[in-house]
């Protein structure tokens, strides 16, 4: 104990007169979230569940993509890749209803004012799902390409979705988010020519910012490209133990 003021610190005295001390901390601000995310990850590992964090701007088609994945999955006639969804929005449970209507187990998280999901919200929501019956859990994050990038939820993969109406330079504008993705999905390709979407430039921009990402071009509306994405995810489920989370 320090003899001057009774505090616990005896080293690192900055100013003996005012008796200021320096305390080294070096602790992550989000260490609490990271710890809970790790707990989620362990739970998902026990359940042999592939978990995807799905991120995009509002209106890019996250919910529509999941709906179409469910439709295509049943068309494929495969019984594997049973889907469950945790969906985050500031308000309303419209999206969860949409998904439940398609026969998907879906839990809504309403965040109030929070612009992103956090690991504790996901932990709570998973209690409402029968994880045993699922192969693939999609966490549909709040529509936002900024804040959710910093929050690990315990997922295996991050999918960043952009639609052709958003412009080819979206990856250049939101590099942090795109750099954290293992998969980038370009949606609404059925209307690409109508909005004069420059495909080559968009793909080149994704590759420049996120060279690690697998790219899929799909239409949630027509179903184009969805089978390839599903097949890729089924493959990832098989090799789940070897997937390295990119962030954190």
């Amino acid at each position: 104990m320090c003899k001057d003021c009774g505090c616990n610190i005896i080293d690192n005295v900055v100013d003996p007169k005012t008796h200021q001390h320096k305390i080294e901390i070096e602790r992550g601000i989000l260490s609490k979230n990271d710890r809970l995310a790790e707990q989620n990850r362990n739970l998902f590992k026990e359940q042999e569940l592939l978990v995807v964090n799905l991120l995009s701007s509002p209106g890019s088609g996250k919910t529509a993509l999941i709906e179409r994945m469910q439709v295509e999955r049943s068309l494929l006639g495969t019984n594997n890749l049973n889907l469950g969804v945790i969906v985050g929005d500031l308000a309303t449970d419209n999206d969860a209803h949409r998904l439940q209507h398609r026969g998907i187990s879906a839990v809504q998280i309403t965040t109030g004012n929070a612009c992103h999901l956090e690991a504790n919200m996901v932990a709570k929501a998973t209690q409402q799902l029968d994880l045993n019956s699922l192969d693939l859990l999609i966490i549909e994050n709040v529509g936002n390409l900024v804040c959710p990038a910093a929050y690990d939820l315990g997922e295996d993969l991050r999918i960043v979705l952009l639609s052709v109406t958003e412009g080819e330079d979206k990856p250049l504008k939101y590099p942090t988010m795109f750099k954290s993705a293992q998969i980038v999905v370009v949606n609404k390709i059925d209307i690409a020519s109508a909005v004069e979407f420059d495909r080559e430039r968009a793909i080149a921009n994704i590759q420049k910012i996120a060279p690690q990402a697998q790219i899929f071009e799909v239409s949630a509306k027509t179903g184009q490209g969805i089978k390839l994405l599903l097949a890729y995810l089924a493959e990832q489920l098989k090799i789940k133990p070897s997937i390295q989370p990119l962030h954190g």
Partner: protein
Amino acid sequence: MMQNTLDIAIAQARQNNAAQIDLLTMNIGELSGVIPEALEFAFEVLRWGTMAENAQLEIKTIPVVCHCPKCDRDFQPEEYIYQCPRCGTTSSKIIAGKELELASLVVSS
């Protein structure tokens, strides 16, 4: 995020029997997705009524460092496209720049 930081800082200061926090130093990576100005603004609001009421906030920006797998060397990219200056390979292996840390405190009794 600033609230988390203050919570950690206050808990640490209390553990050390300090009466007040004079300085908080944070390390914020350029690729953390966090804008220092936003933290500073939140700090101005949140510090009132806490033991950090009179504290200064110092934010150190940590530049991005990437590793080039081809040259097996680290480099500091000049922009958001992480291209190795020697061989031109685009790298996704990030060594530094994602930090979101409370580095240290200066406290007094």
